[in-house]
Structures are given as structure tokens and as C-alpha cells.
């Protein structure tokens, strides 16, 4: 891994070149971690003349107070929904796009657009689209009331479903559910936006991974008798995408933990803290309410999760590296 630089003399210039980076790394990355760790044991607020220690009180609150347990639930729900969904969709899209003969680039471009667009902007647009009365989605569903669309979408054609009591029929009567205003639905809608934004990125990574799978392996599988797409996928595609998958999981997970824009723009953590994700919690508690101590505690917990995840990825990759 180390470059073979000439060994006859030390390059003193090296010190000058790395010095700025080292200073910045320490000041901007490392010192803040220490500060956060320190302050998490206090009840400091900006403007206080001094710091008073409160021990583990902040952490204690995180496990006991409902605000914070809901924070953990909301964050966990978001991560556990968005990560698998956006990875599966990304993989599925990559497989589909890889196997059709035409318009591949067009699909690729379209699916990648959400990744480039500012999430804040698109979150607001989604909020608008899903608006109970103005939103195009609900309007379109409402215009389908009483038409053939209703009979299809209410699943009345399945023998065990009562069309009158279906979600569609109820929506036609009482107005379609408030995607954001309803505490049961809000987190799922936030998840949906997160998936919408993230899967294009995973798709691109998987596409790159797919092209690097050796064609001869597929030939060997064919000769061995792997005739169906499922056999080929299980025997060649999925194993060869292993490293890509590990990377995708880590990146997507870390980014999911950092969700903020959608929440701050639309639900402000509500209703009833059902979308009170960690980054938003830090913002609300520490910045808006000036509870620096609490915010620091959340920061420390957050960092711990991220660290464990990344180290977990490194470990997995080390174990599973296979040479081709």
C-alpha cells in the first residue's frame, strides 16, 4: 500500500503539505467530537457563564422520556424502511435497465434525477403534491371515485375484499388521508420521499457493479444448468455484487441517519413526534431551544451508531473478499 518513494532522504516539504490538513482535521473533526462528548454530561446553554455537570442525566432522558424514545423509534423506523427499500429498488432498477435492449440511458437518467435535485426543494414539492385538497395525487384519486379506477384500486376484485369498506371507498367518502397530518401515516410518507431520493444513487452503483461481472461466469452457469433468471441471479449476479452491496448498505444507512430536510420542511418532527428523527432533534433541542447538553448527548449517540456501522462494513468486507 505504501508508495515506493526514494529512501535516500526525507522530503521535508511533506511536513508543510500535510500541516494544513492535519490542523483542520484536528480542529474541525476531532475536537468537536471531544467537545460534544464533554458537553453531553452538562446542561449547558449558549450564553451561560459557566458549565455545570449533570452526569448521565441527558442519556437517562433519552431512554426514559417519551420525546426521546419516540426519537429513537422514528429514526429506527426511517432507517429500517428506507435502507432496504432503496437498496432493493436500486438493485431491481439496475437489473431491469441492464436487461432491456432500448432506452437504457433514458431510464437511467430519469431515475437518477432525484439524487441531483435539492432535497429540500423536492420535499416541498412532494408536500404540495400530496396536499389533501390541492395535491395532484389526492385530486387524481378523488377524480377516480365512482369510476372503473375505483373498482380496480379498491381490490374489490379479490374475493375476500369488501369493496365498500376498502381504503379507496372510505377515501371517496371522507376525503383522502392526510399523508403528513396523520400521525400514523406521516413517518411512512417521509420514508417514501427518502426512498424516492436515494434509490437512484444505489441504482447507479449497482449498474457499475453489474458491468464488472465476468461474462464467462454466466456462460459457466449456463452450461452447468442454471437456466432461469433466478438461478443466474443466485449463482452469479448476487454473489459478485457482494462488495457493491456492502458499500451501498453502509452509505445508504449513514445517509438515512442524517435525514433532516424533509422533516424540517414539512412535519417539524410531528405529528406527536412521530417523525422526530435524530438530526431534527439535535436542531430543535440544541439550536432552537438552546439545550446544548441534550443536543450533545444525541450527537454522541448518533456518532456511535455511525462508527459501529462503518466498522461493521469494514469487517464484513475483510472477511468476504474473494479473488476472481
Amino acid at each position: 500500500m505504501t508508495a515506493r518513494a526514494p529512501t535516500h532522504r526525507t522530503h521535508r516539504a511533506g511536513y508543510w503539505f500535510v500541516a494544513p490538513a492535519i490542523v483542520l482535521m484536528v480542529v474541525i473533526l476531532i475536537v468537536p467530537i471531544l467537545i460534544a462528548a464533554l458537553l453531553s454530561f452538562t446542561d449547558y446553554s449558549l450564553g451561560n457563564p459557566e458549565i455545570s455537570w449533570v452526569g448521565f442525566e441527558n442519556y437517562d432522558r433519552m431512554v426514559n422520556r417519551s420525546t426521546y424514545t419516540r426519537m429513537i423509534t422514528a429514526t429506527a423506523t426511517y432507517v429500517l424502511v428506507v435502507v432496504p427499500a432503496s437498496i432493493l429498488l436500486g438493485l431491481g432498477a439496475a437489473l431491469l435497465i441492464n436487461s432491456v435492449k432500448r432506452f437504457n440511458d433514458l431510464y437511467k437518467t430519469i431515475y437518477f434525477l432525484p439524487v441531483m435535485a435539492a432535497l429540500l426543494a423536492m420535499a416541498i414539492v412532494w408536500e404540495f403534491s400530496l396536499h389533501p385538497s390541492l395535491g395532484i395525487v389526492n385530486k387524481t384519486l378523488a377524480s377516480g371515485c365512482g369510476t372503473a379506477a375505483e373498482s380496480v384500486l379498491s381490490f374489490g376484485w379479490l374475493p375476500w375484499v369488501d369493496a365498500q369498506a376498502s381504503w379507496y371507498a372510505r377515501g371517496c367518502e371522507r376525503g383522502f388521508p392526510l399523508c403528513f397530518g396523520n400521525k400514523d401515516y406521516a413517518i411512512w410518507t417521509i420514508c417514501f420521499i427518502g426512498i424516492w431520493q436515494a434509490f437512484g444513487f444505489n441504482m447507479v452503483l449497482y449498474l457499475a457493479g453489474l458491468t464488472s461481472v465476468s461474462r464467462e461466469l454466466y456462460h459457466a452457469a449456463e452450461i452447468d444448468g442454471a437456466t432461469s433468471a433466478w438461478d443466474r441471479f443466485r449463482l452469479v449476479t448476487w454473489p459478485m455484487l457482494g462488495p457493491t452491496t456492502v458499500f451501498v448498505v453502509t452509505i445508504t444507512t449513514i445517509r438515512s441517519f442524517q435525514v433532516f430536510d424533509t422533516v424540517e420542511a414539512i412535519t417539524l418532527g410531528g405529528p406527536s413526534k412521530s417523525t422526530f428523527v435524530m438530526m431534527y432533534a439535535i436542531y430543535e433541542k440544541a439550536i432552537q431551544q438552546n439545550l446544548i447538553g441534550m443536543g450533545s448527548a444525541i450527537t454522541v449517540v448518533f456518532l456511535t451508531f455511525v462508527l459501529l456501522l462503518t466498522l461493521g462494513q469494514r469487517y464484513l468486507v475483510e472477511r468476504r473478499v474473494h479473488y476472481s
Partner: protein
Amino acid sequence: MTGIRLSGITKSFGDTSVLRGINLDIAPGEFLTLVGPSGCGKSTLLRIIAGLEEQTGGDVEIGGVRVNNLRASRRDLAMVFQSYALYPHLTIAENMQTPLKLRDLTFWERFPLIGRLWPNYAAKMAALNATVRETADTLEIGHLLGRKPGQLSGGQRQRAALGRAMVRKPVAFLMDEPLSNLDAALRVHMRSELADLHRSLQTTFIYVTHDQAEALTMSDRMAVMVEGNVLQLGTPEEIYRTPVDRCVAEFVGSPKINIIPGAADGNGRVSAYGTPLQQRIAGKARRIQVGIRPEHLMLAPEGSHNEGWPFRVTHKENLGSDFFLHGHLNGSNHRIIARLTPDEVAMVTIGSEITLCPAPGTPIAFDEGGRRIGFVKDRQ
């Protein structure tokens, strides 16, 4: 034992014609090599036989049955790839189990994790593993079954790839340049091992290579292919001694055969570069080309200058067991290579002139278009 027949196989990619009508009858149990320079279409032909590619025209018959519409997995063939194509994430044992699992286990029995709940699973796997063990022992890789391909050397991976092909007991083995990724010494060793394997399995081997030495040493018959055509099909002996044209003659044998201008005088007598040859040719007087292999040239015995070619030496190569002399025929640009024994060249230095003559019966005559002209029997 099953024979394979190719009739009129053509293959084009758009406007480019890669195979231009191949007809081959491969006898049951024979070791047939498809040999030729890069791009001649031999690998494509192999993949068409395997069913991995579809021919543009023509038929493939296996055991008398036309298999054009059968996909690769149903043709009962096995293939060894140039890069071995072992599944990197599976152990050698699992690699070898894969074709058997795909053939003998049902979809649900193969399903990860829950497959083993099925009643017949254990029995089938036991039978399967026995076959794998047996094959591995034959190839002497039994001790490697628990390792992954990345942990094996090139030669071991080769054997593992062979093992995966062998477990299926196919009607024919297809091999796509399997030795080209090995170093020279290992390659020589594996050549004899493959030949032994062929003898013990008594199954048809169809072998693709660009290395004419491999073709000559291993095949029962070889097909020399150039630009999508089979130029000649025959035993190595036939290809070597009686190549059908100059192309084939130049492809086989290393170093390349020397080509010298010559003439036939209409009465059957032949001369090359002014020196008469012992053989006779029928037909009218015309110019011909004479081919003489480096290994068939000798130092003319003392006092016989008329019977040989004056040769000026420009370069000597000492290979220990042989000497190769490079030089020109006197008075021309024709470059000639001659292989001589160390004793013969003891006195030869660069720049010196010697006389070379051919061993009896070894020159080959080609007409101006390159086709070989057969010699007629001497009157005497």
C-alpha cells in the same frame, strides 16, 4: 460415446462474417483440436457447439440428433473456460456440486436455507458428494475441496475447472484455451495430463488453442482454421507432412517453414533456387514455391556443392540442445532458418558461407497460389 457433426455452420455479426461454412465430423471419443491464429473463429465455433451462441446458418448434431434449438444446459456438454470461470464465492467442493445440484435437485430443494428440510435432500446430497469426492480424487485435488478458488494456484484452479466439467459425465468436453493462462513449464506438464485424462475417460474432447505445439502433441485430429474456414482437417502427422496449402504449412511447426522460389520444367523435374530436388512433379513448366522446414535442413556433406544451397550466416541462436542459424540464400533476400546440431555448427561463424541441403523427401512443393502440389513417384 457420441459423435458430433457440424454441417454448414455460418456465423455473422452484422456484416462481418466470422464463420464461413464449417463442416466437421467429430468421431466418438476422439480428441479434436481447433487451432488457428487469433480471430479465426475457433472460439466462436466452440461456443456454437456448446449452445452459448446461435449460429446464423447450418446445423449441429450431437449423437445424430439435431440440437440447434436446445440451449446449452440441455446439450449434455461440459466446458472448461480460459479463465476457468470458477464461482469465486464458493469452495471447490461447492463449485463441483453446482452442476449436479442444478440437475438433480428441484427448485425448492435448492432454495437457500429451507432446501434441506425436504425429505429427499439428504440422500441426494450424499450421492452428489460421493461423485464430487470421486472426481476430486481422480484429479488429485481432494485435499483442496474446502478452499475457495482465490486460494488456489493456477494449475490447481485448472484441475478444479476440469473437475466441475467432469462430474456431469458429459458426452463431450469443450475446452477453450484452458492452458493459456499457465506458465510454460506447467503448460507442458498439463498437456500430458490432459492427454492421459482423455485416454482414461474415453470421451470426446473438442479443444481450442492458438498454440500449434499443443495441437500437434495432444490431438487425434486437428482442424486448422483461418478466417472462418477450416483449411485442413487431419491427423497431426498429415498436417505436418502434407499440409494442404502454404497457410497451413506456415502455421504448423516452429520456427516457420522456409519458402524458397522454385520451378518445374514440364518434364517433372523440380528445382529450388537453382538446385534440383529429388522429387518429381507432373504438369507443365511453371514457377512454384518450395517449402523446407528448418529441422529438415542439414549441412551438405563435403564436396557436393551442386546439391545444396549456398547460405550466408547472419545470426546464431544457441538453445543448448539445438542451434538455429539465421541467414540468407546467397545472392538474394530470402531469409532462411536452419536447425542444426551443435556438432554441425561447431565451425560456423557469423558471416561465413555454408551449403545447406534438404533431408531426402522433406521438401514440399506449392504452386503460385499456395496450394500444395503432390509429388509423383520417381521413375527409378
